[in-house]
C-alpha cells in the first residue's frame, strides 16, 4: 500500500506525426472533448516524420481551451533551458496556466550529436538536467528583480533576464528510470513521468523506483508526497483478459486502481492514437477509477 494522496489525472500520449499534419491536433481536441485532463507528446527532434513538439504543443494550446499540455518528455540536450523557460512561461501565460514541463535527460546520443547537440555521458546528462532545472527556475523567478548570472558546468548565461513569470506554478515532471535520475527527481521534481513499456519487470519495478525518489526527496528535506507519480501506459480493450491492461474496461479499472493502491500512481497517461479508445478511456474508465480510488482511500484513511 503506497499512496501519495494526489488527485487523479488522466491524460493521453499522442504521437506527433507530421503526416497527416493535423492528425495530432485533431486527436488532442478529441481528448479535450472526451474530458481528459492532459495531452502530452514525445520529443525526438531527430525523428524526421514528427512535428517539432514545442511548436505543436503551442499550436494545440491555441486551439484548445481547457486541457493541460506537456512534453512527455522534452529533450533537454536539443533544447536550451533558457529558451525553454521563456517558451514555457510565454505559453503558460497565453493558455491561462495550462502548461507543464515534462523533461528528460536525453538518450539517443548519436542522433543528438548528429543534430548538432552536445554528446554527454549518462552521468553528465543527469548533472546537466539538474543544472537546467535550476536555471529554468531562476528565469521563472521574477519575484527577485535583479538579473541573475548563471554559471554552471553545462549551461552558462551572463545576466539572465528573469521572466516572463509563468501564469501558474509550472510542474517540472521528470522522465527517469535509473537510481541517479530517480534521486534527482526526488530532489527537484514536481512529478515523475516514466513509461510502463520501459519497465523490464512490469509494474512491480515501481516499488524500488519509488523508494529512490522518496529517498532523494527526504535527503533534500522534502516530502515524498511532493512528487506526483505518473505513468505512461499502453493497452488494449478486448473482450477477454490477455494480461495487464489487456481486457475489458472492468479489468482496466481494476488494473489502474491497483497501480494507485500499490504504487501510488496518480497520473495515468494513455498512449493512444485512436479517438475511439480515448473516448472510452475518458468516458468510462477514468470516472470508474476515480470512484474506486476514492472509495479505497475513504476506507484506508479514516
Amino acid at each position, binding site marked *: 500500500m503506497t499512496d501519495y494522496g494526489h488527485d487523479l489525472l488522466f491524460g493521453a500520449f499522442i504521437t506527433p506525426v507530421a503526416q497527416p499534419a493535423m492528425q495530432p491536433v485533431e486527436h488532442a481536441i478529441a481528448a479535450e472533448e472526451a474530458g481528459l485532463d492532459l495531452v502530452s507528446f514525445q520529443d525526438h527532434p531527430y525523428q524526421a*516524420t514528427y512535428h517539432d513538439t514545442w511548436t505543436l504543443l503551442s499550436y494545440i494550446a491555441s486551439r484548445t481551451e481547457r486541457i493541460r499540455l506537456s512534453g512527455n518528455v522534452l529533450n533537454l540536450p536539443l533544447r536550451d533551458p533558457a529558451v525553454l523557460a521563456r517558451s514555457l512561461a*510565454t505559453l503558460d501565460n497565453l493558455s491561462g496556466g495550462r502548461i507543464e514541463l515534462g523533461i528528460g535527460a536525453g538518450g539517443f546520443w548519436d542522433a543528438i550529436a548528429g543534430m548538432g547537440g552536445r554528446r554527454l555521458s549518462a552521468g553528465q546528462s543527469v548533472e546537466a538536467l539538474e543544472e537546467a532545472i535550476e536555471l529554468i527556475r531562476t528565469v521563472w523567478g521574477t519575484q527577485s528583480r535583479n538579473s541573475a548570472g548563471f554559471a554552471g558546468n553545462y549551461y552558462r548565461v551572463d545576466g539572465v533576464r528573469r521572466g516572463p513569470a509563468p501564469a501558474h506554478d509550472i510542474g517540472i515532471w521528470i522522465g527517469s528510470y535509473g537510481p541517479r535520475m530517480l534521486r534527482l527527481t526526488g530532489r527537484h521534481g514536481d512529478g515523475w513521468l516514466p513509461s510502463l513499456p520501459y519497465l523490464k519487470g512490469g509494474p512491480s519495478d515501481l516499488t524500488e523506483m519509488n523508494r529512490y525518489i522518496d529517498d532523494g526527496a527526504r535527503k533534500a528535506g522534502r516530502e515524498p508526497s511532493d512528487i506526483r507519480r505518473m505513468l505512461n501506459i499502453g493497452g488494449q480493450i478486448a473482450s477477454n483478459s490477455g494480461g495487464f491492461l489487456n481486457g475489458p474496461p472492468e479489468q482496466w479499472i481494476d488494473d489502474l486502481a491497483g497501480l494507485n493502491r500499490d504504487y501510488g500512481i496518480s497520473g495515468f497517461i494513455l498512449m493512444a492514437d485512436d479517438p475511439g479508445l480515448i473516448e472510452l478511456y475518458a468516458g468510462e474508465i477514468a470516472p470508474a477509477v476515480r470512484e474506486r480510488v476514492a472509495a479505497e482511500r475513504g476506507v484506508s484513511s479514516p
Partner: protein
Amino acid sequence: MITTTSIAPDRASVRASQADDLGYDLALLQHDSVHADSADIWTLGSWIAGQTDQLQLAVTVADIPRRLPSVLARSVISLDLLSGGRMNLILGENNLSVDAVGSVIEIVRGMMDLSERKALSTGGYFPLRGVKRGPIPAHDVPIWINGAGPEILQLAGQKADSWLAPYQNMRLEDLRIANQFIDQAATDAGRDPREIRRSIVVSGMISDASDTFLQGTTRQWVDDLLPFVLQGGVGTVLLDTSDVDTIDAFAREVVPALQEAIERERPVDSSATRIRRADVRAKRYAGIEYDAVPASLRDSATEPGDVTYPAVRSTYIRAGSPGIVLQARTTAEVVDALAFARRHPDLPLSVRSAGHGISGRSTNQGGIVIDLSQMNEIQVIDEASRVVRLGPGARWMDVAAALQPYGWGLSSGDYGGVGVGGLATAGGIGWLSRKHGLTIDHLKAVDMVLADGSTVRASAEENQDLFWAVRGAGANFGIVVSFEFEAYEVGNIGFGQFVIDAGDTAGFLEKWGATIEASPRDLTSFLIMGPPRRNQPMAAQVLTVVASDDPDTIVDRLQPVANVGPLYNQQVMIMPYAALMANTQGSYHDPGGEPAARSGLIEYITPEFARAAEHLIKSGTVYFFQIRSVGGAVSDVPPDATAYANRSANFSVTAFGPDPERVNQAWDELAVHFNGLYLSFETDQRPERLEDAFPGETLHRLQELKAKWDPENVFRDNFNLTPNVTSG
C-alpha cells in the same frame, strides 16, 4: 502586391487576429528589446497560427545558436504545416556572423529538401551529421534576411527570398543603395533580382493634417509610398504602429488607394508574379513552358524543384516524375489547365483525383498532371431523392462519412483513400457490389470539361452517348468536374475478418468461390493472398461484408465462409459502413518503383483456374493476389447499358508483382480463364487490353464516340481508345 502588418509586443495575439480580420496579408513578429518581459517569439508565432486563418506569419528568430538550427528547421516546417502554408522565417545578424546566417539558411532549406534522398550533413558553423530530412512543408517557406550592412545585403542577394529593411521609414535613397547591393549579388549568383522581394517598415499617423512623411491624409500616404513601390521595387509594406485607428485606416483606405495607384502607374506587363528561385528553376524540364502557366494556377503549380514536389510526384504504387503538377480548384481552372496541357501536345497528360489509381495513369514521367484533389465537394442536393453531388477529388472515406448521418451510402472500392473521379469513371467494385452493383450503376449525371475546353452535362436525358461512355471509359472523354449520384440506404454492416488455411490453395480458392456464389446478395467477400513465407502455413485473408446489422443474419451469412477451411484467426464486428471505409489517414504517396498490376474478370473459380492461380501465387512472381466477388446486382445491368460491359463475371482477380515482364508472362498464361478485365487494376499498356476491357461491340462504339467527343485525341494516356496510337 502590398503586404502589411502591425505588431506590438503585448496583446500581440489579439492584434494579429484583428489584422487577420481586416484583411492584412502578413504579420511580422519580432522581439521588442525595449520590453523586459521577453516572451518567446516562436511560441507566440505558433499560438497566433492557431488564432488566425489567412494571415501569413513572418517570425524573426534571433536566438541562434541557443536555438539549434536543426531544431529550428523542423520547427519552421511544423509551423508551416500546422498553419497551412502561412509561415515565413526571418533571420538577421543578431549575434551571428553573416556566414553563420548563410549556414542556417542552408540547414533550413536542406531539411525541407526531400528530393535529396541522402541524409543532411553540413560543415561550417553548425555541423550536422546524417540528419534525416523532412517533413515536407506545406510550401517553400520564404526565408527573409533582415539587415543593412554590405555583407548581409550580399547574402540576401545570394540566398534570400525576401529582404527586410532593418529600420523604420528608410529613405528611398538608402533603399536604392541597398537594392543595388542585393541586385548585384543576385546577378553574380546567377539569380534574377526579382526573386528577392523587398520589404520596408513604415510608421506614421493618418490624419487631416498634412505636412511631413507619412503624417497626413490617405492621399499623402499614397503619394509618399508610391515611389517606394515604383522606384524602390518594394513588394511588402509593413506598418509598425500600436495605434488601432491607424491600423484600421491603413487597411481600409491606404491599401486600396495604393493598390489602385500602382495599377494605374505600373507598366501593364509587369504583373507581380512569384518568381521561383534560380535553383528551383534549374530543375525545370525542357519542353514545358513554365512561364506560360495560366495566372489562376500559378500559385498552386508544383515544379520538380519545388519543396512540395516529392509530395505530389507519385501515386499510390507508381513513382512518377512529371514536369509540372497543376492543381485545379474550380471548373474554370480545369479549363485553364487543359489549355496549358494542349500547348504541349507531345507530353504525357495525366488527370489525378486522389492518386490511388493502381493502373498508375495519374502520374507520368516528364509530362503534365492535372490534380483535382482540391475539388472535393460532397453535397446533398436533394434529400428526398437522395441525390448527392461529389467532386472528383473527394475521397470515398469522406463520402461515406458525409452520407452516414443520412443513413445512406455508396459502394466504392475497399480503400477509403481512393478518389471519386478515377473510380467513378471506370466502375467501382466495392464492399456492397453484390447487393448494390457497381459505383457507376448509381451515377445519374456528370458535368465534364471536354478536350476543346467546353463544358457539357451528360445524363440519361442529355448527351446520352457520352453518359454511356463515361461509365467505364470516362478517362478517354474528358475531365469530369462533378458527379451526381443517387445514394441508397446503408446502415451498420457486419464485417468478418478471417484468416483461413490455404495450404491446398487450389482447393481453398474453389471452395471459397462456390460458397460466395451460393450466398445471398447481401454478402460480398474479398480474399487476399501473398507468396509462401518460410515456416508459415499458406493462409488467405478473407474479408467479408454482410449488408445487415442483424447479428443472426450476419452469423448466418458468415458461417459458410468460415467453414471454407481451418480458421487461424477470426473477428466479426458490426460497424457503420463509414467506419469500414475510414481505413487510411491520407499521407502523400512515396512508392519505391513501378510494379505491374494485372486484372482479370472470371465467371466461376473453376478447378483449372484455381490450379493455375495456385501455381502463380506459389511461384513468388506476385506479392499480392486478390479476388473480389462481383456478380449479383452488377450482373443485373445489361452489358450494353454502360461502357463497363463485362457484367457476367462473378469475380474480379488482381495481382501485383515487381517485375512487369515476369508478371505479364505469368498472367498471359492465365488469360484463357478470363472473360475481360477491369481497367482500374491494369497496368499493361498493350493494345489488346482494350479488347479485354471493352468486349465486342463496346470497343467499336467507344471508338466512334471517341472520334466524336475527343477528335484530336487529347485524352490518350489512360488506355487510349483511338486505334493505332500507342499511349505514352
